[in-house]
């Protein structure tokens, strides 16, 4: 029997985990998969292809290549930053969209210019 099974919360971690903790671990897992993508792509291919790849790097292949052979601590740090960014977006994006929403037609005269 594992020690963690003495705690009912820990034994059922997939259901009792906090949203913040879950977001952090999910971000770390995403960073791990991106790092394995960096390991899977041969950087020589990009070198041969030339600058056009850098110009059309919409998929972010170059940024992923920077994660080649990253260690766990780097992945945890990157996961933490990614999770913080997503949390800020979750709070900030609705506020930004609220500002962009047009005023109701009836209230248009009341909008101070």
């Amino acid at each position: 029997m594992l020690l963690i099974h003495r705690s009912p919360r820990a034994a059922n971690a997939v259901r009792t985990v906090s949203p913040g903790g879950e977001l952090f671990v999910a971000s770390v897992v995403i960073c791990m998969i991106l790092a394995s993508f960096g390991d899977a792509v041969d950087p020589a291919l990009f070198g041969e292809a030339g600058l056009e790849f850098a110009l059309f790097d919409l998929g972010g292949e170059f940024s992923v290549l920077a994660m080649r052979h990253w260690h766990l601590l780097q992945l945890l740090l990157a996961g933490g930053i990614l999770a913080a960014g997503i949390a800020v977006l979750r709070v900030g994006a609705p506020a930004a969209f609220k500002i962009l929403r047009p005023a109701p037609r009836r209230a248009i005269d009341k909008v101070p210019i």
Partner: protein
Amino acid sequence: MELEFFSAAFLSALFAIVLIDLVLAGDNALIIGLVARNLPKGQQRRVIFWGTFGAIAVRGAMAVLVVYILNVPGFMLAGGIALVWIARKLLTPDPDAAAQHAAQAPAVSFAAALRTIVVADAIMGVDNVLAIGGAASGSIVLIVLGLAISVPIIVWGSHLVITLVDRYPSVILLGGAVLAWTGYSMVVREPLLAPWFEGHAATRLVIAILVFSISLAPWYSARLSARMKPLVVLLPALLIWMLAVEVAASHWKLQVDYLLANESGEYLLEGLRWLGWLPLAAAFLWLRDQLAQRSRSARA
């Protein structure tokens, strides 16, 4: 392989080992208590001391064994696959886990008590030692440090560990992710597969996603609706299909890259690679529906 002290690789491996020690620590204190409870008072102290000593000795011997075994070709791959299963088991909720332990019956003699404690620790410590061996990447210093960390947890740290994981269950999820990551790195480090991976670098990504999709399945399946649950089976199955086609193509020297294909047979093979899994997936979903309907009608 020895890592440089306090380098990022060393500290990362050390962190992985600490985390693995925390989440895979066995409940030795409970086992020792259960085994010793029926012995006379005078023998209980001796059983607790020698039981703890035996558990530590077994853990040390297994760690040394794992270092040597992981150098044998093929064992790194087997260890990586075992870690995927261990991570999956760690994340699977088990309401009856507290009732299951390696020492089911109290011992009646000192020797029997000692044997039960040592065997129970050996059973509980296999996954821990294997994971530490994989995370240490063959570094003896890290293996020794891993043991030095796990032994105090065995002897004194159980309450601390329970408090930590009870307050932060995300430690378990992180432990599962680190185990999956260690399993993936063990699979891609396998010496027998190294030449193949050099020629098929992209398959590393497929293996990474396969490892994470299998080991973290209990986590993400808990978030999926009933309609989306088949994804838990379909995603790993699709990835295994892709890998199998890649392996078959390299074994029979077939061209499966459509950019390099120039014969109709090669295009056909490419089509099979990308679409061949669809009938299998449809058959799986049909069979799943039939079984669900049958069980519903049997209940009604």
